[in-house]
């Protein structure tokens, strides 16, 4: 896969349809995702937002009976049509989930895991990646004296930042975050939000969130999904001040349904 083309869009999704068996879960989604922007995806449970984000690195392929049509162009290549090396795709499109899910290994080995499977062997190189990744997520000062302690001994917020660092260690272009703070306390949540604002200097971020204030705080673009459809995609300030679709307005003002 060739990376680094100079288009503004890192992803360009065209007419994407997805079925779980008979259930039509995503309906004709057209969705450009710009480089170095934070795109938030909001919508009620079951609207397809998590399904959508999982199509971007084809994590969705792990669900049985999934069928997709349309295009998911990543840096100009349709990952649905071409023979894609999934490990390589996921190196470029990292993902973080609702709850920190560190491997039952040391802090160091969690971060070094990705680079190792991609062939980085020298301890000096790995040390550098581990240090830099932990610094990027502002976890370095908190863990530098216990890099070889078990990652599962960290607090929930620290575990989540560790998982972000683990995703960053393979130098991805895109970071997918599926409700990354839903299991965290308010202060840890704000730390992750601050981190998102810092990371967008270097990465493209797509975040699924149930917290609309979070979407309005951290994102440049916001997309509203409803029953498998992309209802509205616009700048976050427009979505939260004057959305065009009354269904968006109903959802964000809490008067939905």
């Amino acid at each position, binding site marked *: 896969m060739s990376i680094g083309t100079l288009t503004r869009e890192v992803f360009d999704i065209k007419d994407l349809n997805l079925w779980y068996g008979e259930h039509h879960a995503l309906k004709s989604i057209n969705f450009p995702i710009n480089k170095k922007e934070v795109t938030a995806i909001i919508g009620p449970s079951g609207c397809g937002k998590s399904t959508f984000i999982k199509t971007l690195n084809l994590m969705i392929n792990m669900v049985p009976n999934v069928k997709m049509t349309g295009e998911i162009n990543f840096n100009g290549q349709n990952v649905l049509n071409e023979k894609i090396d999934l490990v390589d795709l996921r190196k470029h499109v990292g993902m973080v989930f609702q709850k920190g899910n560190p491997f039952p290994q040391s802090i160091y080995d969690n971060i070094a895991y990705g680079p190792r499977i991609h062939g980085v062997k020298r301890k000096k190189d790995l040390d550098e990646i581990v240090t830099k990744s932990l610094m990027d997520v502002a976890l370095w000062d908190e863990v530098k004296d216990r890099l070889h302690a078990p990652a599962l001994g960290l607090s929930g917020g620290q575990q989540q930042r560790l998982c972000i660092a683990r995703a960053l260690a393979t130098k991805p272009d895109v970071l997918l975050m599926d409700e990354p703070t839903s299991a965290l306390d308010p202060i840890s949540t704000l730390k992750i939000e601050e981190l998102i604002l810092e990371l967008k200097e270097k990465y493209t971020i797509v975040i699924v969130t149930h917290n*609309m*204030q979070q979407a309005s705080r951290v994102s440049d673009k916001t997309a509203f999904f409803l029953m498998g459809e992309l209802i509205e995609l616009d700048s976050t300030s427009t979505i*939260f001040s004057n959305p065009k679709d009354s269904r968006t307005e109903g959802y964000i003002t809490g*008067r939905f349904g």
Partner: protein
Amino acid sequence: MSTRANFDQNLKELKSMLLKMASKSEYAIKEAMIALINQDIEKAKHVIKADSEINELEHEINDKALLLIARESPVASDLRKINVALKVSSEVERMADMAVNIAKSAVHIGEEKHIKELVDIPNMMERALDMVAESITAYYSEDITIAKKCAEKDDEVDKMFGRLIQELLGYIPQNPSSTNQIIQLAFVCRFLERIADHSTNIAENVIYLVTGQRIDLNA
């Protein structure tokens, strides 16, 4: 089940507080003008004194609006409703200040006989009060047609103002001893013109409330 019944109730209360404040301001303008026309100093003094109630209402509206912002994290039309309530309350408060100014002019003129019967100034007052009533109706019913209709009248009031000022200043050479009265009446014209401007601002806020677009109706 309604998901935000309590919030909706609070937004309604905010609006009715503002309507109460607006009707008090409207009443104050009328009373001030009656005091001026009838040279009723006691009435004028009452208008000046009653202004504190309107100021108090503005503070209550501000406090409630800020509490709702803090508590409900409003967005989109909810946020516009609160934002507009804050802005309209401040326009209404300024209108009431104009009523106080008119009342003060009435006190300054006192019982000195008017240089002529006041005809055009009461006419101008009628126009300005029409605009006040229309702007408040537009706000109450969130009706942009009424808002635009209100703003269209502002030109007419501006023209009346220009004409009346010229006329009043023209009286000074023949009535030098009434200069104070003439200046006070010119001030009153200015206050009425400002009241019309505040109504126009309210109309602009109504358009923003309904459409999310900011437009300048004064231009």
